[in-house]
């Protein structure tokens, strides 16, 4: 008789197969413009996303704890949020050509979690604290949103230069209009900013309860504030000075680059509370 965790691991790997099949369909759609596979693509995406959600939820229920308790669950949740946001975007703009890029990133995160993290690792004790759990949950949703904003920002820049230089090729054909890419960048950055800010606020409150002060010289926390400032500048610029297009696209890319730097280089080189939390 297989244990619950072993069964769940098998289901997770099977669902990775489903994810891969979905990705292959998106690739066929992108490169060959096979419109008739669209319904199948969407059904597979929904199915794999629901199963991923089910895997995380059942782990949480089985262990009676926060479902983002260890590194595997955190990365898996991050990829899940990317998929959910993409489903929302696809429904909203009715364009499927960016799916290959966004879903490939979600797939890479899932795969790296499965290959690089301990599936059975115990949950971080820090997550027993509700404030810290809210902090990590909001950070995961915020970062996923900001990643999507940066992807659309990047695609905006690609199409912008292709239009400026009259460089027409398959990628030019497949990308949605600049207007849509700009809109997606702004929407994703807007929601990402608020979740990321909420995460910082929960984090500060937890810090205060732990160490008696709101502030810290932890490099990741400092970079978190810098990231927030970058997006705040973009949002204020958009709301009050009509900033649009290339400028906001570069800001989104810059903002997410800081998050990426913080999650990789800073974690490796500096001693930070985030490096040990999972």
């Amino acid at each position: 008789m297989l244990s619950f965790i072993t069964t769940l691991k098998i289901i997770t790997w099977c669902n990775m197969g489903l994810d891969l099949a979905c990705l292959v369909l998106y690739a066929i759609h992108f490169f060959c413009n096979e419109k008739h596979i669209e319904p199948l693509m969407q059904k597979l995406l929904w199915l794999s996303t629901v199963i991923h959600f089910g895997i995380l939820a059942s782990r949480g229920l089985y262990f009676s704890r926060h479902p983002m308790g260890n590194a595997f669950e955190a990365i898996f949740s991050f990829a899940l949020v990317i998929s959910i946001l993409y489903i929302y975007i696809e429904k909203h703009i009715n364009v499927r050509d960016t799916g290959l890029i966004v879903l490939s990133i979600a797939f890479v995160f899932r795969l790296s979690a499965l290959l690089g993290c301990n599936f059975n690792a115990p949950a971080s004790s820090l997550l027993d604290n509700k404030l810290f759990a809210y902090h990590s949950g909001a950070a995961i949703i915020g970062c996923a949103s900001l990643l999507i904003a940066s992807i659309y920002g990047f695609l905006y820049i690609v199409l912008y230069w292709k239009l400026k230089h009259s460089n027409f090729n398959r990628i030019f054909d497949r990308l949605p209009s600049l207007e849509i890419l700009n809109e997606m960048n702004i929407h994703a950055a807007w929601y990402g900013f608020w979740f990321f800010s909420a995460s910082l606020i929960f984090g500060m409150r937890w810090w205060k309860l732990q160490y008696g002060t709101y502030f810290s010289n932890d490099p990741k926390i400092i970079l978190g504030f810098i990231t927030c400032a970058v997006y705040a500048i973009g949002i204020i610029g958009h709301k009050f000075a009509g900033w649009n297009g290339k400028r906001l696209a570069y800001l989104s890319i810059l903002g997410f680059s800081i998050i990426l730097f913080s999650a990789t280089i800073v974690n490796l080189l500096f001693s930070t509370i985030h490096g040990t939390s999972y």
Partner: protein
Amino acid sequence: MGLGTTFHLQIIGMDHTVADLNQREKCAFSKEEIPNGIKKCLKLTGVREVAILSTCNRVEIVAVIEQEYSAESKKILTNFLQDFKGYEAVTHLFDYSNLKAVEHLYRVASGMESMILGEYQILSQVKESLDLSNTAGGIDTILHGLFAKVITASKRVRTETQLGVGAVSVAGSAVDLIKKIFNDLSKHKALIIGAGDTGQLVAKHLVDSGIGDILVTNRTLAKAETLAKEINANVVEFDKFCDVLKDVDIVFGTTASNTPVLNMVQLKKALVKRTMRPLALIDIAVPRDFEVGIDKLEFVFLHCLDDLQKLIAHTIDVRRQELGLAESIVLDEAKKFVAWCNSLDVAPTIVALRSKVMQIQDVEINRQKNKLSPAEIENCLNFSTAVLNKLLHLPISQLKQCDINNNSDLRRIKYIRESFGLDNSG
């Protein structure tokens, strides 16, 4: 081998690949000539059905004949064309028979043989020639079936490939380009500078694309007013068009001016009053209407004729890459048509009819299997077989009397096949 056991499809004709415009002109059939041509052709020995397709780029005689394809059978249609159009007019003909002829017609209707690859107007011309030939009495069972399948094949090529993707005219590709900047053109306003032929063409494309609003300006105000009236647009005085640049998102330059009508200084001044929104400048005038280099400004996208030609070349390239897929669809559909023709023979129809009815019997008997004893099933089987045999007796007897050389008998076979759904059962 023919399409059925006793009939053959043959096409002779000329198009832009084998004959120049002079020759095509001489050989073209006017709408008035087609009925007469069809009547004459039907009088020829062995010709059972005929359709004439005549467009600016091609003239084709599509005929169902009794003779197997040979130099002699080819001569029947060639002689007809020479008699009808004059000996000098009929040169450089191509000819196809049976499966190749079906494939050719499918290729023509799908735009694969068009001068501009993927051009879709040809399908409506094929439909029109079908109507004309039908009215003139040239079309019966086979060509009716063929043209119905031609439309199906053409639609499949259109939906399953990118053969018709994008625009290949300057004005059309300009609109395609604008759609890469703005998602919903109904929310945007365009300004057309120049109300000449090019301006009119652009206006038509913009209206077709569902643009929100159009402004027209021209040195001669009356001309702008005429165009504006035609497309339900507003007019702007020529020396004041820079004032509206803050409100429009798309500007077309189509004048015959020798100097640019919009320069960097004017544009910079206009952009001060604009929020940071993209401005698409499409310059299809020669000499150019917009000063070179004004696209250095961040939100300005300037595209001239060369850029549009580049986009057209790219579109044609994409279409060309789809040819392989389109060919496979054409072959697939052509084979289906040949199979349908073969099914019009009597014997396959009788077999298909019997098999269809027995299949229904099997399904119904199986449904009752759990409710009845083996003896009762046996009784049911005997009873239903007796009833079905009696019911089938009359249609099968009629089928056996059919002569497939006779068009009315062919229609009867077709009717039976359609009534019993014999062509849908795979």
